[in-house]
Structures are given as structure tokens and as C-alpha cells.
């Protein structure tokens, strides 16, 4: 187990990078605490796989250092970094029993048989594989196979970090819930540093204590799931997290408030960081938009154009002029037809200047 530090890390796949655009990973400084659960979240091509490969030692960074518990491992080969990895497709030996699969990483490292037995049984019990230890892996379902992969990752005592690369992508939704909660439980019990790479916000947010959101090789925000949801520091995070993502509406400033379509929109945080000439946007999540009476001072007239039934809530699409404003209505709530008015929850409405949050957090 280890704390992981990335110091001034930067990477380019071209030998002589001339400009910022040549870097697949822009400069970053990150500290991952020992025993923490982290997620790397971003769309394909955002650089998360490059970062993963740098940590595991498959790729040497062009610049910067990687420290495990203060020790420089930047140029250490993968097999000396003591990292366990779990991939999208379970990597297990079909012809071996569940027991032998779990024991494999330990026997490989010449761990005494007694200790192997103790560890394998411990991990198998956590993963609810205890009753199938003597079954061949070939006969198991995809979820049990992925559990074995996870088990092989955590069975060793000497791993610095365990990395999961899209481990649930090919798993059915029902089993995803089970595996996710198993993984979570495993983390709560073994307290290993875990890094989970995914493009799926639900997986990232439900797994991690802290999520690193990446876009175009850059870390755009590091925060708890609640931070990312309630206070995205960039419009990309606002859009990428949440389903649908944050509403982003062109606005102007009116002192400490914003002005949108002739209405003054009260804000909890003054947009003090909005530079003159910057493109200003009002950001508010669909969860924090509600229908109000026309008499409400902050009411914005809209037209309801579409209602999608998502089961436990409905996704309502409205238009204010050219702008689309989404809101979520709980199952069972009445939804007006055609012309209506909406308002934004003040504490959750932000102003963004050229994409970046234009306010500082004020004491709650």
C-alpha cells in the first residue's frame, strides 16, 4: 500500500514536442493518499489510459516523476512496482480452479503455502466465492470471473496500488450493481489504494472518494462526487457529469447577480473572477430547476417541448427562446403543458467565464 505522487508529470508521444498540443498529457501534479479510492473519469482519448500506463510503468513519461511512498519509481519496470491490474475482460485461467486462480499471484511470488491458503480463503469469503473454490473457472458466469480477477488483484499483501481499467463495461446492469457493491465493500475492508478508470460517470461517482475528471489530456477537476455535482469548476465537468448534464445558458453580469433574458438571476457566489470580455454562461443542473408560478420574481418563461419518462423521474425539455433548459421532475409530479415558468435554485446556480467557474466558494 502506498501514497502515489505525480510530480510535474507531462507526456508526449512525439520525440520533440514543440507546442502544448503535442502533449497527450498536459502538466499535472497529483497526490493520491494511501488507502484512498480514486476514479479517473473522461471520454475516450482524454489521456486516462496514458496516465494509467505511466503509473503501471508501461510508458515512461517525457517529463516529471512518479513517487510511491516518496520513493522515485519513474524508471522502475512494471514488475518491480507491485501493482495489480484488473481489465475490462477478466484475465483468468479457465482450466484452473477458483482456488488456484486466486492463489496464482502468491505462488508466483513463492509465498508459503500456509499463508497462501489463509489469504485465498479470506478473499474468497469476501467475494462470496468460498463455496466454489474447487470449481473450474471455465464454468463460471461473467460476473464471477470478474470477481476472480478482482480477487487476484487484492490477494497479494505487497501491492502498492490496484488499478481497474473499465472493469464493468461488459457486465450486465444487474450484475454491475452487485459487483460494484462488492468492490466497494472490498475497499472498505482491505483499504488498498485503488484507481478506477472509466468513462462511465455512475461507476466513477459511486466508487470513488475522489474523482479526477480529464479532458484533452488535462485534469479539469479533482473532487468528491458531491463537489463535482454541486460545484463543477468547469463547464466540461458540468456537462460530462449528470444525466442530462448541466444547463449552460448565455448570460451577462448585473452586479453580484446574473442577467438572463432580461431577468435578474440571484447568485449565492459573486462572479468576481469573470474577466471583461469573457464568454459568460449561467450553469444550473436540471436537478435544481423547478416549475414556478408566473408571479415568482425569478420566473423565466419557457415552453415545455418534450417529456421523457426515466422511471423514477421525468426529464423535461423546455425552451427559452433558442436555449434548451432541462429539468428533472420526480415521478408523479404534475408537468405543465406548453407555456410555463421555471426558476433556478440560488445556491446551485453558477456563472462560468470562458468555461471556468467565475466565483470562489463562500462560507456556507
Amino acid at each position: 500500500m502506498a501514497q502515489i505522487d505525480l510530480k510535474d508529470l507531462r507526456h508526449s508521444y512525439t520525440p520533440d514536442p514543440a507546442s502544448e498540443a503535442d502533449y497527450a498529457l498536459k502538466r499535472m501534479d497529483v497526490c493520491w493518499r494511501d488507502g484512498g479510492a480514486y476514479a479517473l473519469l473522461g471520454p475516450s482519448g482524454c489521456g486516462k489510459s496514458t496516465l494509467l500506463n505511466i503509473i503501471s510503468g508501461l510508458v515512461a513519461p517525457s517529463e516529471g516523476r512518479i513517487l510511491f511512498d516518496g520513493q522515485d519509481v519513474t524508471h522502475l519496470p512494471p514488475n518491480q512496482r507491485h501493482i495489480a491490474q484488473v481489465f475490462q475482460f477478466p484475465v483468468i485461467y479457465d482450466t484452473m480452479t477458483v482456488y488456484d486462480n486466486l492463489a496464482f499471484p502468491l505462488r508466483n511470488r513463492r509465498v508459503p503455502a500456509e499463508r497462501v491458503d489463509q489469504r485465498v480463503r479470506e478473499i474468497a469469503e469476501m467475494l462470496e466465492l468460498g463455496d466454489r473454490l474447487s470449481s473450474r473457472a471455465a464454468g463460471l458466469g461473467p460476473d464471477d470471473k470478474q470477481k476472480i480477477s478482482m480477487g487476484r488483484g487484492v490477494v497479494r499483501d505487497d501491492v502498492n496500488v490496484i488499478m481497474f481499467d473499465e472493469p464493468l463495461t461488459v457486465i450486465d446492469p444487474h450484475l454491475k450493481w452487485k459487483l460494484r457493491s462488492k468492490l466497494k465493500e472490498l475497499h472498505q475492508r482491505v483499504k488498498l489504494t485503488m484507481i478506477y478508470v472509466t468513462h462511465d460517470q455512475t461507476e466513477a461517482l459511486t466508487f470513488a472518494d475522489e474523482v479526477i475528471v480529464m479532458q484533452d489530456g488535462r485534469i479539469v477537476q479533482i473532487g468528491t462526487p458531491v463537489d463535482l455535482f454541486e460545484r463543477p469548476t468547469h463547464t466540461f465537468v458540468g456537462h460530462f457529469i449528470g444525466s442530462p448534464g448541466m444547463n449552460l445558458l448565455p448570460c451577462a453580469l448585473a452586479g453580484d447577480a446574473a442577467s438572463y433574458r432580461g431577468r435578474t438571476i440571484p447568485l449565492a457566489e459573486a462572479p468576481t473572477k469573470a474577466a471583461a470580455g469573457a464568454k459568460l454562461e449561467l450553469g444550473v443542473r436540471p436537478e435544481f430547476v423547478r416549475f414556478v408560478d408566473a408571479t415568482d420574481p425569478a420566473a423565466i418563461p419557457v415552453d415545455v417541448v418534450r417529456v421523457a419518462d426515466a422511471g423514477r423521474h421525468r426529464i423535461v425539455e423546455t425552451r427559452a427562446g433558442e436555449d434548451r433548459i432541462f429539468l428533472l421532475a420526480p415521478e408523479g409530479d404534475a408537468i405543465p403543458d406548453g407555456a410555463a415558468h421555471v426558476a433556478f435554485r440560488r445556491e446551485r446556480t453558477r456563472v462560468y467565464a470562458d468555461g471556468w467557474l467565475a466565483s470562489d466558494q463562500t462560507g456556507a
Partner: protein
Amino acid sequence: MTMEFQSVAKRVGVDTHIYETNLTLSEAGFNVLLGATGAGKTTLIKLMAGLESVSSGRILLNGEDVTARSPQKRNVSLVHQFFVNYPHMSVFENIASPLRIARVAEDEIKRRVGEAAELMRLGPYLERRPAELSGGQQQRTALARAIVKDSALVLLDEPLANLDYKLREELRDELPRLFADRGAIVVYATSEPSEALLLGGFTATMREGRVTHFGPTAQIYREPRDLATAQVFSDPPMNVASVEKQGAQIRLGDGARWAASGAIAAAPDGRYTMGVRPNFVSPTEDGADRVRIDGKVLVTELSGSESVAHFELPGAIWVSQSHGVHPYEVGESRAFYLDPSRCLYFDAAGARVAN
């Protein structure tokens, strides 16, 4: 336009892949096949396409028997989970390929490919090869080819499963609009209940080779015919428990009890299986008639907008899904509140107790 399955079954050797199925699909909205891997969705799609032959029964297209017709003569488009494009052809030629085979005139090809590419936002990439595109763009190329063909039957087999979450969200929103008013019967297979809901239209829930229920999507979700349908159509999985109905009262284990209301009130006394979706089990008492259930918190998941707790009650593990942030402690025993008006009841055979 309709496609009708009349007592269609598919057996391979001694195994039954599809049990006798009767189903009528139309062009009025997407027809979603919802079920886990192995439920029979892909087999059903192959039978529709003519890629597999039925063991018994008939398939009618607009009343005409097409059971023995080859895939080429069924006027079908099929899009798979894994993007299938011609690697040596440009995106333009990939999209145009079915029109070339049909010997459509050159300017007509240009027009239709342009239109399909516009819909799929592939305009700037028409001269590229598939390998130079992102996964999402490759899949949109395959979808554009399905659109350009103007097929009577469009079969989409988990077409978004391999795409990024956000892109999936976008395409899921657009697809029903893209195919609306094209007069085609669209069949869409997915393993995700949330996807079925958002696509709307009609849903056939599938489990182990059987269509358990078919009808308007929202109705299947809220009024499932049986326990299997309710379980297939629930994400997170539906909470279930065995309950005892005695007179006007429902009892769960030794503790919680509440007044029977709705159809269950008129049902005979005895044991039933009760099912309730995780969003109707809350950590706070949101209404006067809520039923308190005590459980031990096993695992918590916090997504920012929602809090999920997996908790243990005697004989079952349940999930509560609620809005906002709830400070759970793993291991704590605490109260959850069930909305009894949202409970579904199923008899010993699994049929939902309904009026």
C-alpha cells in the same frame, strides 16, 4: 406496417433458445427488447432478419408470410454492438454501399448519403477511412448506413453498448427522432432498463428465451404482468421480500406491517412476494403513511445527485436510492421508509396481483 410472430419457436438440438412467442411489432415507436445477456434478444433479432430459421411458427410482414424468405429479400438493416464497416472504403462509400448495390442513381446517392451524414454529424469525415474515426463516429457510420437504406425493418442490437457514456446519452436521445416518420419498424435490443425507458415506444421484456411481457414501455415498467418482468425492468434491481397478507393487513417478517390497499386488498389471505423499487425506499420519512423498516447498512454509494445504500434486513439485502446526499455510516443499523402505495404483489406463480 407490422411484423408479426405467430407461435415462433427456436430450438437447437435439445435446447430451446426461444420458447413459443407471439408478438406484433409496428412502426409506431421503437420496439425495445430488454433483457440480460443470454435472454434471447439476439436470437430473436436473427429470426427477424432471416439470419436464423424458425423451428416452428410463422413470421408475417404486413400480413405476408416471410418465414422462408432470405435476409437479402427481407429489406432489413442490421446494426451490431461492434461497429462493422468496410475498412478499405471511405465513410461516404460505407454509407452509400447499400444504395450502390440497389443501383441507385449517382445524384440520388449523393443526396441521401449527405442527408444521413448530416443527421449523424459525419459531414466533415466523409472522405476518411473508418480506422481514422473514433468509436462513436464509426458506430454512427454504421447507423447512417442503416438509415440511408430506407429499410422496412431496422434491427439495432445493442448499438450503443460500446460507446462512451455521454455519447450514448446523446445518440439515445436522437435515435428515436432520426427514425420517426420513416415508416420503418425499428427493433432495439438492450440490457439496460434506463435505456428502454428513455427510448420509449414499446418494450418486450425477455428472460431465458421467453418474452415475459410486451406493451407500451411506461406501462410495462409500472404495471408489469409478473415478477420476472418487474425484475428484468428494474435498475437498480427491485427489492423483493416474502410478505403475509392477513385480512386488511400486510406483514413483512416480524416487524413492519401496513394496510393492504389496491388490488391486494381484495386478494385472498396468504403469502405473496412483494416487490418495491429502490427509489420508493427512503432514508427519510417523506410521507404520513410510510412504513418503517430497520436494516443494517452494508455498502453506500454517493453519486452527488443521489445516495444509494445497500442494507440488510432479515433474509434479504435491499437497496435504497434517494435524492441528495445522505450521511450513511457503514455498519450502522437505521430506519428506512417504504412507500406502501408503490409496492407490487405477486402470487405464488409469480403473476402480479391486479384488478
